[in-house]
């Protein structure tokens, strides 16, 4: 298969894999009324320097006293003065995260999971398809690709959210929109009086944009409903299952394939994913994705 398998992170190999590293929140960006991006750095300067990860990998973030939750690293490994993750306020830990301010300390374990297969993507046309907060893992890869622009062919991005207020990373969208080497379409399910862009759900806009499947890979991330409706459209456009990648989300606790709950059949999303091709997903024992 095409995804990179990351062996247990060597440089973070301390005796006890469950002990988090302490990190400080350096900046908080309100993406939407209930989604925030947190910029953070490790307290241990040596670790900050030596920490390495790949686009697509995730971490377990602690709010001490509340608990841990998994989020992908939403910044790019090519931009390393700090790390970023993006969290929607939906549960216990994310509510606590949203109450934290700049300077607050959090815990981080990771990076865990596999990553987007850069070797496989090189020399190809890339079609990024994102919905809502699903742009977070794609964003790590998009910046990664832009920072190594010559290694890749055309870049297209179709990104949508429910309303203009729900669009994440508007500052990135502005930058990418001005980048002549990126072909970007931003859409919303429902516009408002100021919205002059496209209106329509992502799979529909994708069908209209009809990117060529030739020498292309589609990288899809968004709410499960969007993912489920996007694969058939891509198939219709001629994308083979191997040409469609996504990153899956499940409830996770340990992040390292032990606590059990993120399984889809015999697959553990934390350990065997989170990045999967549609070819892999179709071969899953279970359709519980």
């Amino acid at each position, binding site marked *: 298969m095409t995804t990179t398998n990351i*062996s*247990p992170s060597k440089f973070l190999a301390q*005796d*006890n*894999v*469950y*002990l*988090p590293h*302490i990190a400080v929140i350096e900046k908080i960006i309100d993406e939407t009324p209930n989604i925030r991006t947190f910029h953070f750095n490790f*307290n241990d300067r040596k670790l900050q320097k030596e920490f390495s990860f790949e686009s697509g990998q995730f971490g377990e973030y*602690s709010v*001490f*006293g*509340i*608990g*841990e939750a998994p989020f992908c690293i939403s910044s790019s490994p090519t931009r390393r003065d700090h790390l970023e993750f993006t969290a929607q306020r*939906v*549960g216990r830990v*994310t509510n606590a995260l949203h109450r934290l301010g700049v300077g607050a*300390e959090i*815990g981080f374990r990771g990076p865990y999971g596999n990553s987007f297969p850069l070797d496989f993507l090189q020399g190809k046309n890339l079609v990024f398809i994102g919905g809502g907060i699903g742009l977070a893992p794609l964003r790590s890869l998009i910046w990664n690709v832009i920072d190594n622009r010559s290694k890749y062919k055309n870049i297209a991005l179709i990104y949508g959210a429910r309303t203009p207020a729900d669009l994440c990373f508007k500052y990135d969208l502005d930058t990418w929109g001005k980048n002549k080497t990126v072909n970007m379409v931003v859409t919303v399910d429902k516009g408002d009086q100021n919205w002059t862009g496209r209106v329509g759900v992502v799979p529909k806009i994708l069908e209209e944009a009809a990117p060529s499947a030739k020498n292309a890979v589609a990288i899809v991330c968004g*709410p*499960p409903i969007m993912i489920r409706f996007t694969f058939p459209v891509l198939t219709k456009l001629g994308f083979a299952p191997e040409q469609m990648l996504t990153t899956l*989300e*499940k*409830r996770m*606790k*340990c992040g*390292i*394939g*032990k*606590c*059990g*709950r*993120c*399984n*889809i*059949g*015999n697959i553990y999303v934390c*350990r065997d994913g989170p990045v999967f091709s549609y070819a892999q997903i*179709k071969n899953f*024992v*279970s*359709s*519980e*994705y």
Partner: protein
Amino acid sequence: MASKKVNKKDVLKLLNQWRQQFAVFVPSRESGVATMARWEGKDTGFLDWYRNTVIPPKANFLPPMEEMFRFQKDKAGYRIELPPSDGGKQLIFGIRPCDARAMKILDMTFEEDYEDPYYLSRRNSAVLVGLGCNNPGDSCFCTSLGISPAESNDVDLMLTDIGDEFLVEPISATGKELIARSSGLKGANKADEARAKEAKETAYNKVTRKIDTNGITDKLLACFDDEKFWEKVAAKCISCGICTLLCPTCYCFDINDELVRQEGTRFRSLDSCAFPVYTKMPMENPRAEKWKRVRNKVCHKYAFYPMNFDVIACTGCGRCIRLCPVNWDITQTLESVPTKTKVGK
């Protein structure tokens, strides 16, 4: 090393010797529930009533709840420290062959990729002294999983009841060493060994409950999407989780924090795929339906674990049958799996 034997009356002395070096655990009744508990050096009365523990010996390695670390906030920020170590090397006396095999099965998960320091530090320093089962219960079906009730290669020492004495067989290097250091053991003769062999055969034949595990993984995968079948299987399940919490090979856990003022604890506790919250995410739940959870439980043991580790994660110990409040029976489920070939997806 040749086999030894020990008179049942001298087990007390033997355990007392081992107690100098190990934290010795023996079958005990705590609030009426049989479990492996710390032996206080008093008596060996458990030899009279012990069949198997309700709480499997996995609890000695993966406790129902354990502290992972403590954290404290002061002016300099958060400080993390490990909890004090929990009492040194364990010697588990009387573990049954089914439960000893279960430990081998658990090892696979906790050793894979990232090592689990809590489980492995206990496990790697522990000595298992097995005690053959002379009277397997009605719900036991270990022989269908390739386990003999009175024989084991998954322990360090194996004891077999031969009347007034136990035959003591060293299985591992640790077991040999332990015998060499222990006094009060006599050499076993051919007659002792013959009696042990007979006891083992008798015990083996007493296990009458059987299942056919041949091709079970493929059979389960073939009917994985058969909702009607799984709904029938799950009909009486009340999602109480007992069959998983007390299963010697179930290991799923939850991680949570507790905070009192600025001092906190992160702990883990056993969890169960029987509970809807186990997989619940804020926006959706992939196994909200009970039949999907029961399917996951059965298939994890008989399909997913074999796919990942080439071994069925069940030892036929029978606890899930004995202890189920609504008499759900995994052997009935496995016997009723429809035989069909998988058509497409």
